[in-house]
């Protein structure tokens, strides 16, 4: 969890009531779980009511905490070493007079991990602009190019260095996974960036990139929510941002109360899910399987 719930339990009472109510609804009316033959004329899929309930609850919690944050309530956010390491890596690159490489994954901008990577890119560009070193951003999907260009340009502008922005450093490489990997490896070996920042959605190319970066002696910080690639990053990178931390980055770096509020909401939802999992485990252990069945999605 990004934000640990503090001891002021009464704050959570309204949500616990909502959760209790929702569980009661599911208990009273399990008819939604009955599969229906033909839904093509129906305006609502009753098999997915559990997902709707969860979404309403989750959105409600987040909106509640955002409103609280807007009212000026201070929210604690724990330290994320990987995100602090970005500044350290950029600083080291400056000392060595070597570039910074930012790889935003290989998926398109309609993937939420790429959106998260773009948010981090803006903050990195702002840091790099202050140190006056090149920032290379190789892109795999053409749709990401204008977004990345805009983020880097804005980062340089907000650091007061719009003149230092070099449009040619945001480069479209290729849509093909391994052609892109070869292109990025080429940049790593030729330009020898001192800081390799890999954030976004990665697949089989993750280890190729991280190992090549390791061989060049760069400081590497990686973050992805693709769990199959996490072990590779953990092995080959100095710092790894795992799963949910990637999505917490914008709030962590900006410290904006509204964004911190949404983190708090996510954490409460996680606490509820943990409670449900524990309850489910206990009930299944005692042979009560109906509770577990409510959570199947058809």
């Amino acid at each position, binding site marked *: 969890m990004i934000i640990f719930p503090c001891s002021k339990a009464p704050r959570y009472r309204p949500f616990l009531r909502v959760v209790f109510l929702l569980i009661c609804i599911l208990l009273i009316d399990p008819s939604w779980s009955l599969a229906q033959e033909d839904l093509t004329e129906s305006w609502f899929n009753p098999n997915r009511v559990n997902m*709707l309930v969860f979404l309403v609850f989750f959105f409600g919690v987040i909106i509640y905490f955002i409103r609280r944050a807007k009212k000026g309530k201070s929210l604690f956010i724990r330290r994320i070493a990987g995100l602090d390491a970005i500044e350290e890596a950029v600083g080291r690159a400056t000392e060595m007079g070597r570039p910074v490489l930012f790889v935003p994954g290989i998926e398109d901008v309609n993937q939420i991990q790429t959106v998260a990577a773009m948010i981090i890119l803006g903050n990195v560009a702002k840091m790099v602009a202050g140190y006056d070193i090149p920032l290379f951003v190789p892109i795999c999907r*053409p749709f990401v190019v204008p977004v990345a260009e805009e983020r880097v340009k804005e980062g340089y502008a907000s650091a007061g260095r719009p003149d230092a922005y070099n449009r040619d450093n*945001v480069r479209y490489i290729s849509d093909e996974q391994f052609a892109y990997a070869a292109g990025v490896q080429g940049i790593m070996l030729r330009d020898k960036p001192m800081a390799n920042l890999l954030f976004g959605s990665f697949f089989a190319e993750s280890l190729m990139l991280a190992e090549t970066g390791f061989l060049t002696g760069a400081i590497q910080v990686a973050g992805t929510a693709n769990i199959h690639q996490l*072990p590779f990053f953990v*092995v080959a990178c100095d710092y790894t941002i795992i799963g949910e931390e990637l999505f917490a980055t914008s709030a962590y770096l900006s410290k904006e109360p509204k964004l911190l509020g949404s983190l708090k909401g996510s954490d409460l939802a996680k606490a509820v899910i943990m409670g449900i999992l524990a309850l489910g485990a206990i009930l299944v252990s005692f042979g009560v399987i109906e509770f577990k069945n409510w959570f199947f999605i058809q």
Partner: protein
Amino acid sequence: MRREIPIAICFLFGISFILEYFIPHEGVLSIFETIRQWAIIVIAFAYVLGIANLLRINYHVVQRKQRDWPYKIILMASLFFMITVGIVFDILGVGLGGIGEGTIFGWVYYHAQYPLQSTMFALLAFFIASAAFRAFRIRTFQASLLAVTALFVMIGRVPVGESLWAGFPDFTEWIMNVPQLAGKRAIMIGAALGAISTALKVLTGLERTYLGGE
């Protein structure tokens, strides 16, 4: 308005995809399908941006005779060659034009790009070997735990493991299905909630930094 209109568009289309999950009505689904096709068309046009970016950067390198400039000429020549044989020849009705099998485009794809990609993928074996060597060096308690567990899993998944101890395969399965899977699912749940939370922030316009132009 420069920011409000994109946020409004993002909200409308984002919500429509959420609704699609809950509304099975045939008529409504056909509307969502149309929206999906719009998205594909818009993404297809983005390739023009990609090609423009690629040509601009590589043309500058060639023009200024910067490092590795001859390779940039090969890159641009290859790009135009594939566009010509794949699209122009097809439109003009020249023999072997087009992008399917039995065309020049197809031949280059299957005899140049495909083996090159396979070669790159094959290199992964060597990267895994070097990464595994570092990962299994016993320096800390956690690294020791990792190395010992990995050793058990590896032994349990080869025939010699079963001959050493009949319970090895089952023990390996337990490691994979209980502690390993529990950790993996915990990360998955956290990441999924983080993704939903980010999506909500993007949909509601709370997170708008990705739009740029602040």
